[in-house]
C-alpha cells in the first residue's frame, strides 16, 4: 500500500505509546497476541488491557522463569517418539508445545525458521534427526542468526534433506551452496554462478555418516576461493561470515521477518526498513529485531492490522487458545496437513509460501470443517473444547450478550447477531468469518 511508502521510519520504529488518537484497545491487544503468539484467551486479553502495551510485550519477550523446565519436559516427550521413520508424533508434540509453552513467541519464531530452513521429513525419514533439527532451530530462534546458519549447515537433517551428505573435493555440492546463498542468506539473484561454485568448495569435507556430521579433512578443498571480492583459503565458517557481511543478507531476513510479524500484503520500502537492516547487520541479533518490530508504532498501526493471512496452525490454535482447552494434537496435525501445512514436511526447500497461497476454495471448506469439528464436541476432538464453559467462566466480567463475548474474544470487534441464533451458530460464524482467517 502506498501509505507505507510515505511512512517516516523514525515514527514507524519508535515504540508505540497509547494516545487518545491511538488508544490501547482490545483490538490492539488481540493483534499483538495473534502475531507474537498463537492467539489469546480472555484472561490474557483483559490482563493486556490493564498492563498496557509495554508491560505486555515485556511478558511476551522475556523468557519466563519456568521456560527452561518446560522445554526440558517437552524435549523428553519429543525423545519418547523414539527412532521411527515417521514424524507424525513429533508433529503432535510440537503443536502441543505451541499451545502450552510459557513463551509462545519462541515457538512462533521456531515455526518461522522451520519454513526458512525448510527441511522435509519426506526426504530425511527420521523422527530423531528432525527432532534434533528443530531443537537446534529453537535454541537460536530468538538468538543469533549467525550462529543459527553456522549450526544449520552442519545439521544432519538439513544435509540429508538437501541431498548433501557428501561434499567431496572432486565434486563440490553446488545445490547446497546455492540454497545457502539464495534461500538462507542473500536471497535470489544476489549471487552469480561463479560465487556459488566458489562457496561450494569451502563446504567440501562435510559429510553425514550414520546420522552424525563428520568433517573429513582429506576431502576438504583448502585452496584459495574468491568470494565477493575477497580471496583466501576459506572454510565454511568463513564463507558464512562473508555472506553475512553482504547487506543483502540482513535485508533479506529483515524483510522476511517483517512479512511474518507485521505485514505480508505489501513489501515495505527500503527507506522504511533501513534502520532495522542496519541494526540487524551489526550482530544478527534476532531478539532485538523482533523486539523493535513488536514495540513499534508501525506494528500497532492500521497499516499492519489484518495484513497477514493466518497459516493453518495459527487458524486452529487460535480457537483452541481462546477456548482454553487441549485437543488431540495427533488429529490436529493431520488436519493441518490437509490444509497445506504439514509440519516437518514443507512442500519444497523454499518452505511454505504463505500469504494468499493458503487460501483456495478447497482449503476454505476444510478450514470451516475443521472449525466445526473442533467446536462441535464430537468425533476426534470430542468434549475437549467447551464454549459454554468459557462463557460461564467470564460471563460476569464480560457482561455482554453471548455472541458479542465471542466476537470480542476472537475478533475484537462489535457485531449484531441475528435474533434467536444459537451460541454455537454465532461462534461458528465468527471463526469462519473472513476476519478470523486473517492475523
Amino acid at each position, binding site marked *: 500500500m502506498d501509505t507505507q511508502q510515505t511512512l517516516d521510519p523514525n515514527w514507524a520504529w519508535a515504540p508505540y505509546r497509547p494516545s487518545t488518537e491511538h488508544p490501547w484497545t482490545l483490538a490492539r491487544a488481540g493483534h499483538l497476541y495473534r502475531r507474537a503468539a498463537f492467539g489469546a484467551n480472555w484472561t490474557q486479553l483483559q490482563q493486556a488491557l490493564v498492563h498496557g502495551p509495554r508491560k505486555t510485550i515485556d511478558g511476551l519477550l522475556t523468557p519466563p522463569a519456568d521456560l527452561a523446565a518446560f522445554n526440558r519436559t517437552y524435549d523428553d516427550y519429543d525423545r519418547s517418539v*523414539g527412532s521411527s521413520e515417521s514424524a507424525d508424533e513429533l508433529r503432535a508434540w510440537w503443536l502441543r508445545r505451541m499451545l502450552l509453552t510459557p513463551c509462545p513467541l519462541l515457538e512462533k519464531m521456531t515455526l518461522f525458521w522451520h519454513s526458512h530452513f525448510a527441511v522435509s521429513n519426506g526426504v530425511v525419514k527420521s523422527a530423531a534427526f528432525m527432532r534434533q533439527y528443530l531443537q537446534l532451530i529453537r535454541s537460536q530462534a530468538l538468538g543469533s542468526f549467525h550462529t543459527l546458519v553456522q549450526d544449520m549447515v552442519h545439521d544432519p537433517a538439513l544435509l540429508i534433506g538437501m541431498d548433501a551428505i557428501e561434499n567431496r573435493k572432486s565434486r563440490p555440492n553446488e545445490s547446497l551452496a546455492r540454497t545457502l546463498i539464495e534461500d538462507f542468506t542473500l536471497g535470489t539473484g544476489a549471487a552469480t554462478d561463479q560465487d556459488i561454485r566458489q562457496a561450494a568448495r569451502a563446504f567440501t569435507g562435510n559429510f553425514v555418516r550414520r546420522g552424525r556430521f563428520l568433517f573429513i579433512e582429506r576431502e576438504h578443498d583448502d585452496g584459495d576461493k574468491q568470494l565477493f571480492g575477497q580471496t583466501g583459503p576459506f572454510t565454511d565458517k568463513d564463507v558464512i561470515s562473508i555472506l553475512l557481511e553482504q547487506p543483502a543478507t540482513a535485508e533479506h531476513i529483515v524483510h522476511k521477518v517483517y512479512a511474518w510479524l507485521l505485514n505480508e500484503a505489501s513489501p515495505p520500502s527500503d527507506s522504511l526498513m533501513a534502520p532495522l537492516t542496519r541494526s540487524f547487520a551489526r550482530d544478527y541479533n534476532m531478539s532485538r529485531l523482533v523486539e523493535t518490530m513488536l514495540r513499534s508504532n508501525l506494528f500497532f498501526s492500521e497499516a499492519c492490522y489484518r495484513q497477514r493471512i493466518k497459516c493453518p496452525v495459527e487458524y486452529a490454535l487460535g480457537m483452541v487458545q481462546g477456548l482454553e482447552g487441549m485437543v488431540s494434537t495427533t488429529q490436529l496435525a493431520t488436519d493441518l496437513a490437509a490444509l497445506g501445512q504439514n509440519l516437518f514436511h514443507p512442500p519444497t526447500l523454499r518452505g511454505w509460501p504463505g500469504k494468499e497461497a493458503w487460501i483456495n476454495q478447497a482449503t476454505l471448506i476444510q478450514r470451516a470443517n475443521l472449525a466445526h469439528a473442533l467446536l462441535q464436541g464430537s468425533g476426534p476432538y470430542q468434549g475437549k473444547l467447551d464454549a459454554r464453559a468459557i462463557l460461564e467462566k467470564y460471563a460476569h466480567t464480560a457482561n455482554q450478550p453471548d455472541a458479542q463475548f465471542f466476537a470480542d474474544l476472537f475478533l475484537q470487534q462489535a457485531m449484531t447477531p441475528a435474533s434467536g441464533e444459537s451460541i454455537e451458530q454465532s461462534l461458528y460464524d465468527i471463526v469462519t468469518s473472513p476476519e478470523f482467517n486473517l492475523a
Partner: protein
Amino acid sequence: MVRQFLCLCVVLCQTAGAVESLAPQTQWIPDNAVLCVELSNPKALIDMLTSDTAFGALQKVPLYQTRNTNPKFKEFLTGVKFLEAALETSWKTAIRKLTGGGITLAVCPDDLVILMVDAEDADLLTRLHNIVLTMVRTEADNQGHSDRVASAEYLGVTGWSFDGKEAHAIIGHRLIFANKPEALKTVLELRARADKVGLASQVRYRAAREATAPDAAGQVYADLATLKQIPDLAAALEQGRANPLAGLLFAGIIESIRDATWMSVGLHVQHDTLAFRAHLDSANLDPKGPAGFALPGKPNEGALPNLSVPGGIASLSFYRDLFRFYGAKDDLFPERTSGLIFFENMMGIFFSGRDLTDEVLAETLPEIRFVVAQQQYDPALGTPQVQIPAFGLILRLRDEQTFDIVAEEAWQKAVGLVNFTRGQQGMPGLIIDRPVHNDTKFTMAYFSTATVDKDTNLPTRFNIRPAIALPHNYLILSSTDGLARDLIDAVTREAQQAVQPANQDHTLAELNGQALTAILRANVRAMVTQNMVEKGNTEEEAKNSIDLLITLAQFVDSVKLSIGTHQSLTRAELALKFNLD
C-alpha cells in the same frame, strides 16, 4: 441422579395385587422383536455382582474412588440408606426379591422397548411403591408441580404414565414397562389373546431358545435377518472382504453371521466365571465355498489345543487350510494391493521361485497357531524403551523330511535381505547363530551390540531376536529365541501326547489377564505420552485412564473363546474368569 433413581423405584414398585400364575414373559412380547434379553435366574448374576469380592474389586477402580467423593453419588447413597431403613432390609435382599422372578427386555422395530420384571415378594413391592409414590409427590410439591402421574384403563388393566411418553402397568407380581404407550398396548393385547402369538411361539425364537442350555441364567435372542438390514452392520460384514489377513482370521465367523437368521446367547454363571454361549443357525455354510478353508470337514477335525508357554499373554489356534485359502484369493480378496504383491515377490525370492500356493502353502497342515508371551531381556544389555512381547507362529508340515531345509533356507535368505537393506540405510544388522535347545538345533539372529551402551532406553529393535525352529514336523517362527525355546518344549510335549484337535471348532483363543497386565505396566510411560497427544489429555488424565485400563485388565484372570460348527449350528463360547482378590 435422584430423579432417575426415583423413577426407577416407582417403576419397580407399582403395587402388585394377589400373586397369580402368569404366562411366560416372552408370550407377551411381540413376535417381531429383533432383540430380546431374558434373565430367568437373575439371582445368580446378582449374587456374583454383589459378592464381597466383587465389591472389594470395584473399590480398587480409580474411577469408583473419585465417584465416592462426588456429592451426587453421596446423595444417591443417602437415598439407598433411607430406603433400606424404610423397607427394613438390605438393598441386596431387596433387589433379589424384587427381580427374582425373572427379567425380560425386548427391542422391537420402530424403537419400541419393553421391560418386564417379575417380583418374588409382592409385599415388598407394595411397601416400596408406597414410599416412592410419597417421595414423588413430595418432590413434585416442592417444585410447585401438580401430581403428574396419569393412568388409564386398557383391556381391564390400569396403565400408568409419568409424562405421556413412558408407560407401565402392573399385572399380578409382574411389572411391565414400555418406552411408548403403544408398546404397552401391544403387550396388553397379546396378554388378552387366547391363541399364543407372542415371541415365545415364534419359530426362530423357539429354535434359538432350544439351542440355549436349560441351566442358563439368562439368554439373548437376536433376529439377525432383520438386524443385518442395518446399513452399518451390513457394511461391517462386507469389510471383512477387503483385507486378506482379516479374511484369514475371521473366516467362518463373518460367513456364519452373513448366513444366519437368528442368534442366541446363553449366559452361565459359575463361581468367578461368566460364560457366554452363542449359537447361530448358519446351516448353509458351504464347505466347498471360498470360506470352506476354515471349516473342519470330517468329525474330529478342528483347531489344535492352544500351546502354553511360561509368561504366555495370549494364544490363538485356528483350523485354516492355507493352501485352499490362498488358492481362492481371487474370490476372497480380489484387489491386488502393493503389500500383497510385495509379499509374493519376497516369497518368490525366499522360496527360490517355488509357487507360493502349490509348492509352499500346500506343504502345511490345515492349522495355524500364534503365541504371544512376555519376554526376558538380557540384563547385561538393558531393556528397550518400548517393550514389545514376543510372538510366535506355529505350523505343522506334511513332509518335514523334504520341507525343513526349504523353510530354513527361506528364513536365512530373509535375514540376509533384511541385513542388506539395513546396511544400505546405514543401520546395524543381524548376526545369525545356531544354538541347541533340548536336542533341537535351531537358528536365531540377534542385533549387533557394537555401538550400544547398557541402557533402559534401548532402541525398539532390541525386542526382536528372530528365530526359526523345526522340531518333529513343526515349523516355529518366533520373534525371540527365548520364545522359540519355550515353544520347542511345548510342541515336544504335544508330540509325545498324540494331540487331539478340538472337535469341529475352527477358532480357539486364550488370554491371560495377569501377563497382559504385566506387559501393560512395562509400557505405562509410552502409553501415557501416546494418550496425551492422541486424546489431548493432561499427563494426569492420561495416567488415570491408563491406570484404569490396567486395573480392569487385572480383574481378568483369563478369557477363553472357541468358535466352531456343531450340528449345523455355529457355536461360540466366551468364558471370562475374574480375578477379584
